[in-house]
């Protein structure tokens, strides 16, 4: 297989490495999702050059105005440009959700590998801990912890990471349980391979696909979750422009101007829609068990 691949031209080789993406793009909704995600990514990267204004410059005389030629989407209660704040807010949305999900993935992987491979008491203890974290509705757990730690970017990331850990740990555990029964693992063990080698070289690469699916499906959920916490004033503190705080400030002035809520709401919905379509299609492509169920 190796030589088969290396003989091909370089371009071909790259295309072959990402056949999944090609399959996703073949489906209309997957392509739509990918386009939105790509657009979102471009906005995140090029925020300073796209944003027409500074996101924190005040223009009190023009506060709470509707769309105009200067302020394309209007202004908020301090006269700040809504469009620029939304553009910079995309960085917070992606930054926090990616970091939080990475924490959940790493912690979940470690816990899942331990409990799945060792079994016995370690497994039972880890399961009870995971169950206990999941015994709280996510929002409530986050509220309880953030109430103590206080709102900050780092705290929000840590809390979301912790709340999402059980999901990854469970998927990892289930995968390890099924993979470790394979004959090649037993062969490796009888040849005297260490636990570490079996886990890292033989089990880990074989359990990644479901985790990638879970990650793709979780990103939009985490983005809305973070925005929700910021909406409640427990997320990213002002004046940092986050979508949730734009919504929350818009809510305070809902009787004066409909624009902040409308635009921030639409942005949030469009982004999560893009990520969800992409994630669902990716799951269908990667996991043949689901194929055909989502062929729109």
């Amino acid at each position, binding site marked *: 297989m190796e030589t088969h691949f290396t003989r091909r031209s370089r371009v071909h080789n790259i295309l072959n490495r990402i056949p999944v993406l090609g399959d996703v793009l073949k489906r209309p*909704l997957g392509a739509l999702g990918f386009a939105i995600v790509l657009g979102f990514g471009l906005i995140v990267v090029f925020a300073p050059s796209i944003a027409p204004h500074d996101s924190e410059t005040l223009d009190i005389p023009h506060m709470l105005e509707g769309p105009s030629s200067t302020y394309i989407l209007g202004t908020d209660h301090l006269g700040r440009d809504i469009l620029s704040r939304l553009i910079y807010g995309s960085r917070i949305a992606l930054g926090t959700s990616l970091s939080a999900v990475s924490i959940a993935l790493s912690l979940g992987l470690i816990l899942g590998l331990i409990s799945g491979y060792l079994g016995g008491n370690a497994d039972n203890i880890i399961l*009870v*801990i995971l*169950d*206990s974290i999941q*015994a*709280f*509705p*996510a*929002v*409530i*757990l986050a*509220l*309880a*912890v953030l*109430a*103590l*730690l206080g709102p900050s970017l780092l705290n929000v990331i840590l809390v979301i990471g912790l709340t999402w850990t059980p999901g990854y740990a469970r998927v990892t555990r289930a995968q390890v349980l099924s993979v470790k029964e394979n004959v090649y693992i037993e062969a490796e063990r009888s040849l005297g391979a260490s636990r570490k080698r079996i886990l890292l070289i033989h089990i880990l690469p074989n359990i990644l696909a479901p985790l990638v699916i879970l990650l793709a499906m979780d990103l*939009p959920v985490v983005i*809305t979750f973070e*925005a*929700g916490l910021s*909406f*409640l004033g*427990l997320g990213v503190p002002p004046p940092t422009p986050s979508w949730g705080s734009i*919504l929350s400030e*818009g*809510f305070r002035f*809902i*009787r004066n101007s*409909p624009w902040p*809520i*409308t635009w921030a*709401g639409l942005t*949030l*919905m469009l982004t*999560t*829609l893009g990520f*969800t*379509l992409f994630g*669902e299609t990716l799951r269908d492509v990667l996991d043949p068990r689901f194929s*055909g*169920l*989502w*062929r*729109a």
Partner: protein
Amino acid sequence: MRIYFLKHIFMTVMVLLVVIIILALLVHIVPGDPARVFLGQRATPELIARFRSSMDLDQPAHIQIARFLWRTLHGDLGVDLWTGRPLTDTIGDVLPHTIILAFTSLFLAVLVGIPLGVFSASHPDSWADRLTAIISISFITIPSYVGGLIMLLVFAVQLNMLPAMGVGEISNPIDYARHLVMPSVALAIPWMGYLARLVRTSLLEVFNADYIRAARAAGLQEHLILYKYALKNALIPTMAVLGVGIGNLMGGAVFVEVIFNRPGMGTLIFNAIQLRNYPLVRAGVLIIALLFILANLLTDLIYTYLDPRIQIERK
């Protein structure tokens, strides 16, 4: 079956214990003196003393856990830091509003989601199926606070059709229901989409089962197959999700409760955070977690009863 049930209940009790330990000790994740840090500018020596004694902060950790557990088992959640009122009364006042909100939302989600899913699955790969797919995915991606804010904007601020604040008078059912419309719809929208997808998936799975093929081969009418045989089995996974759903809706209620200024568990915890009343935050979180665990246990037991294969699969 009985052994499975007992094992399950034992696990739940373990989880309850760990949850209580977590909540008893959670306050210590704050660097420094929790009373001083949490009370912030409102910290007076007297209040600090009350905070410390109400949470047993002067005692070693195991005593803190034991006392918290003991009181919880006796239905004593402590008293309010500011007013001295028992927290069970404060919670008892608002809990019904949250429970009504959560169940109304769940009902709306079932009312819209299940028919959508059935319709979608009985016309697989048609344009109608695709349209339903797009609608349900879009619904899933409307967070309750965005839906709530937009409804508030349109129906209360602009059109002045529905009341924007509070729960209304319980003695006046029509008034109460009018106050319930926007919050419950906002909370239900993502679940409508989610249930539609779920029902569609499980129905399509059931359609492939041998007994449905046999029924088809025997020439039974399509609608008879769908409603009498397929749907019954397809709804079992949905049942399991609804149990988790009711707990999640009670937690997620915080967003719409804050937006529509409804008394409830969400606003209770939210306001307690603003007022730096941590014992109340803790008591509220504990009650929600207890209800959540209970709902999960009940659905799991019902689920296993309805579909005995589960206990074998889960071993």
